[in-house]
C-alpha cells in the first residue's frame, strides 16, 4: 500500500467518524550495514520499515495513534483510537492544526545510492584492515562498521497541506582496541555524511586516540582550570538543550523561564539554532507541525534572545513561534527540539587556551551523561577522562575522575572559546557543535 492509498483510507475513515481536522506523519526508512570482527564480516543487516502517526482534533484537543501495521483494518482502528484518546485530554493549551506557511525554502539534500551488501562488506573489511595496520598494538575486539540509510518523511493534513523531505546518509565507524603491556584501551571515531571517502582518517584517529589513553593516571581531587573539548562541550550542550524549550519553561522545568532579554551567559557566548546549517546531514524546511523553519539566535553576546517554541506553547506564552516542533520517531508525540544547535567560535587558538589553562586538564571524554546530569536542576557530576596540561602543552593521560558543576553557572563562567568548531553530536536532522571551552575553577574528584 503506498502513501496515497493510505491517505485515502484515513480520509475516508475520518470522514465517517465526523473528524474534519487531522494530520498524518508518515516515515519510511531503508537501511543497511555491515560489521567486522577480526579479519571477517561478523554481521550484515538491513531494515525496511514504515510507520505512521494519525493525529486528530476533537473538541479542541489532539488525539494520537500510530502503527507500523499498514492494513485497511488497522488504519481504520487508528482513526477511532486517536479520536477516543482526544476525548480524555484535559490540557488547556490550544491545539493548533496548521494551515501552512506562505512559502518553504527549497533544500536539495543530496540523493545517494543504497550500496549493495557486497559493497558494504568490502568497505567494512577495508576499514578493518586499515585500523589493524595503524599500529602493532591494535588487537582483536577492534570492530569497524559501515552503513547507509534513506529516510523519507511526509506530513499532510486536512487543510490540504502536503510536505515532503528526505535524507540520505552514509555512516562509518572505526572502534579500535589497543593492548600494550597488559593494559587495554579503546576508542572510536565515527562519521555521518554523504560519502565513504577517506575512511583511513577515521582508523588513524581511532587508533591514535586509543593509544594516547594508555598509561593514564589518576588525578588528585581539587579545583582545576579545564579546557572542555569542542566535542564534549557539544555533548554537554545537547544533554541540557531541553532547558531552552519553551514548554519546559512553561512547566517550570527550566530556570530560563522569563529570562528573555537577560544575561544568562558570558559575553563571548552566542548560540544559534540553524535548520539550514552545513553541519547537518540534511536540512529541514518544515517542522513537525508543518511550519516553515528559520534560523534562530538563542543567545547573543551572553543575552537570551528567545527560547524554542512550537505553535501551542508560543501561543500560551504569548511568544513568537520558532518552528521547533519535532518528533523523535513516527510514534512520538510532538516535542520541542533544536536542529543544528551550536555555540559560535571564539577568537583564541587552541594553544592559547592551553596556555591559559596551565596546570589544568584537557577533558576529552564525558561518560554516563544520561545519569550524571540533571536537566531540571542543571547539576552535573560526570565521569571524565583527558590529559594534564603542563607548560601550556598536553601532557600525560588522566582518567577516573569526575567534573562537577551546574550548567546554568557554566554558561556564565565560560572564560574563553577556541576559534575551531567541532560538531561533537553529528546527526541527520539534529546536530550540536561547539568550540573548545576554557572554564576556570572546576571541581574535580579523583584519587
Amino acid at each position, binding site marked *: 500500500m503506498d502513501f496515497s492509498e493510505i491517505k485515502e483510507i484515513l480520509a475516508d475513515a475520518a470522514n465517517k467518524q465526523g473528524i474534519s481536522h487531522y494530520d498524518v506523519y508518515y516515515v519510511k526508512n531503508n537501511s543497511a550495514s555491515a560489521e567486522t570482527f577480526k579479519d571477517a564480516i561478523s554481521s550484515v543487516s538491513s531494515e525496511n520499515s514504515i510507520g505512521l502517526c494519525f493525529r486528530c482534533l476533537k473538541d479542541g484537543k489532539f488525539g494520537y495513534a500510530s502503527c507500523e501495521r499498514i492494513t485497511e483494518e488497522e488504519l481504520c482502528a487508528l482513526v477511532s483510537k486517536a479520536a477516543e484518546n482526544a476525548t480524555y485530554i484535559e490540557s488547556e493549551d490550544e491545539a493548533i492544526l496548521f494551515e501552512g506557511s506562505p512559502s518553504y525554502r527549497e533544500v536539495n539534500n543530496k540523493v545517494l545510492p543504497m550500496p549493495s551488501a557486497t559493497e558494504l562488506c568490502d568497505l567494512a573489511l577495508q576499514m578493518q584492515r586499515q585500523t589493524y595496520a595503524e599500529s602493532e598494538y591494535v588487537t582483536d575486539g577492534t570492530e569497524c562498521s559501515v552503513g547507509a540509510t534513506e529516510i523519507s518523511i511526509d506530513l499532510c493534513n486536512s487543510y490540504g497541506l502536503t510536505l515532503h523531505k528526505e535524507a540520505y546518509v552514509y555512516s562509518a565507524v572505526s572502534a579500535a582496541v589497543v593492548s600494550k603491556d597488559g593494559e587495554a584501551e579503546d576508542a572510536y571515531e565515527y562519521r555521518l555524511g554523504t560519502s565513504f571517502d577517506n575512511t583511513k582518517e577515521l582508523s588513524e584517529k581511532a587508533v591514535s586516540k586509543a593509544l594516547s589513553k594508555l598509561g593514564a593516571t589518576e588525578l588528585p581531587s581539587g579545583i582545576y582550570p579545564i579546557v572542555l573539548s569542542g566535542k564534549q562541550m557539544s555533548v554537554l550542550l545537547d544533554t541540557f538543550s531541553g532547558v531552552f524549550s519553551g514548554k519546559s519553561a512553561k512547566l517550570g522545568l527550566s530556570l530560563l523561564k522569563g529570562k528573555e532579554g537577560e544575561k544568562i551567559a558570558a559575553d563571548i557566548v552566542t548560540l544559534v539554532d540553524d535548520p539550514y546549517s552545513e553541519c547537518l546531514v540534511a536540512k529541514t524546511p518544515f517542522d513537525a507541525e508543518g511550519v516553515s523553519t528559520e534560523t534562530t539566535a538563542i543567545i547573543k553576546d551572553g543575552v537570551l534572545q528567545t527560547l524554542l517554541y512550537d505553535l501551542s506553547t508560543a501561543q500560551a506564552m504569548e511568544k513568537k513561534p520558532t518552528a521547533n516542533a519535532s518528533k523523535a520517531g513516527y510514534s512520538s508525540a510532538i516535542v520541542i527540539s533544536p536542529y543544528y544547535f551550536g555555540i559560535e567560535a571564539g577568537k583564541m587558538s587552541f594553544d592559547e587556551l592551553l596556555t591559559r589553562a596551565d596546570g589544568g586538564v584537557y577533558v576529552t571524554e564525558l561518560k*554516563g551523561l544520561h545519569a550524571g546530569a540533571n536537566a531540571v536542576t542543571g547539576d552535573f557530576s560526570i565521569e571524565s577522562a583527558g590529559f594534564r596540561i603542563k607548560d601550556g602543552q598536553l601532557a600525560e593521560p588522566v582518567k577516573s575522575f569526575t567534573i562537577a558543576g551546574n550548567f546554568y553557572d557554566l554558561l556564565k563562567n565560560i572564560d574563553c572559546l577556541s576559534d575551531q568548531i567541532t560538531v561533537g553530536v553529528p546527526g541527520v536532522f539534529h546536530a550540536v557543535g561547539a568550540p573548545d571551552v576554557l572554564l576556570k575553577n572546576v571541581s574535580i*574528584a579523583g584519587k
Partner: protein
Amino acid sequence: MLNKIIAAEVLAKAMSGGADFAEIFCELTRTQSLSLVDSKIDRITDNVISGVGIRAFKGTQTAYASTCDVTRGGLLACAQRVADVIADGKASVNLSLTERIFPNIHPVEVEPVGADMKRKIDLLKAGCFAAKGYDAHISQVQGTLALVDRTVWIANSEELFTSDRHVRTRMAVSSVASDKGENQSGSCSPGRGMGLEMFEIFKPEDIGAEASRHAMVNLRASYCPAGRMPVAIENGFGGVIFHEACGHSLEATSVGTGTSQMCGKLGQKIAGDKVTAIDDGTMVGAWGSVNIDDEGNPTKRNVLIENGVLKQYMIDRLGSRRMGMPMTGNSRRQDYHYEPTSRMTNTYIDNGPDKNEDIIRSIEYGLYAKKMGGGSVNPLTGDFNFAVSEGYIIRNGEICEPVRGASLIGNGSQILMDIDMVGQNLATGQGMCGSSSGSVPTDVGQPLIRVSSITVGGR
C-alpha cells in the same frame, strides 16, 4: 501472525545460500502511554509495532534483515536479503516445525492496554495528585503510565516453533520542588511484568508521595563533598552498581569478542566473599522476566557469582558459538528491528550475612547512597559511573545531613573486591537498559551493601 507452514518456507529461503542456521522473530506489540502534567491529562498515545526479523548464521557470521511487511511475499523477500549475504554455498532445506508450548509463569489478571481508560486515568491521577499535595514546595509533577502488550512468535531451523506474550505496566512520577529560584527533582517509577494488578502491590498514592519526598530531601540538601570514602549503598535500584560494574562485563556481547575484563575468569575469585550474584529471568511477574528469551529459549535462574567466585556468563546463540559454551536464556532485543544479543534480565546481589544497622555503624565518615540514578560502563576497561540521586553523609556510624549532585566512579574488578559487607533486605528496582540490541526492561537489585572505598564525585 506467523504460521508453521509459512515459517518453514521462509526459514528454508533464508538458508538457501548455505547458512547453517536460520531464525524468524515475529512481533505484534501494542503500547499505550498516558501522561499527566500540571495536574491535567496532557497526552495519550497508542502504538502498534508489527514486523519480523530474520537471521541466518554461517559459523559466527550473521545476516539479519527486518521488515514491517508480514505478508508471505514480504517475509520471503526479507529471507532472500539474508540468503544473499550468506551466499557462499547452496543448501536445499526441508523443514518440519514442531510447536513447543512453554508454561506461562507470569499470568496477567488485568490486561493493561485494553483496560478501561477511565480506570487508568484515575490511577495516574491518584499518583500525581498525591505527589502534588505532599508539600507546598512541590511546584510541578509529571506522571506517566506506560503499558505494553507484546506477542512474539519464534521459529528456527532446529524445528522450533513457539510464541510468548509479555505484558508490562509501569507508573513513573517525577516531582519538582522549588524554593528561592532553585529547582530540585525526585522520582519514583515502579514497574512489573504484569497488568493493572500491579497497583495492588504499589499504591499509586505511595508512588507519588515517594517522588515528592525525594524532591524535598534534595531541596534541603547541600552539595556532596568530593573524595574517596566508604559508601553504603541501599537496596532496590542501588543494584545498578552490580549491573554496571559487573553485569555488562559478564554478557557474551563483550566476553565473546574478548572485550571484557571478565574474559577467562570462570572459577576465579572476582568479588568479595560475601557476594553472590544472580540473573533470574524466571522471577514471577518481575519487570525483566519473560517465559522464553528472544531466541525462543526458556529463561533461567543463573548464578553468576557464588561467594565471590565467577560461575557463569550470560550467553546468547552467537555468544555460544563464539565461546563454545551453552546458551543461558539471556538473548533479548528491544523489538524486531534489532538483532538480539546477550542481555541481563533481573540481576541482583543476594542477601548476605551482615545486619543493616551494623553496616551503617561501621562507617566513621562516608556516604549513604539511599537512591541511585542510572550509570554506564566500558566493559573493556571496567570503568563505570553512576549517579546518586539521594545521598546522606555518614558520620560516626550515624546517617546525618542529605547531600546532592554526587556520582560514584570506579573500576568493576576493583569495586567487586571492595564489597566487604552485604546486608539482608534484598529488594529490586526497575530500569531500561541500553545496549546494541536496543532498550530492554531489566530489574536490578541488592540488599544494603558496603563498599570499603570508592571515588565520590561531588564538589
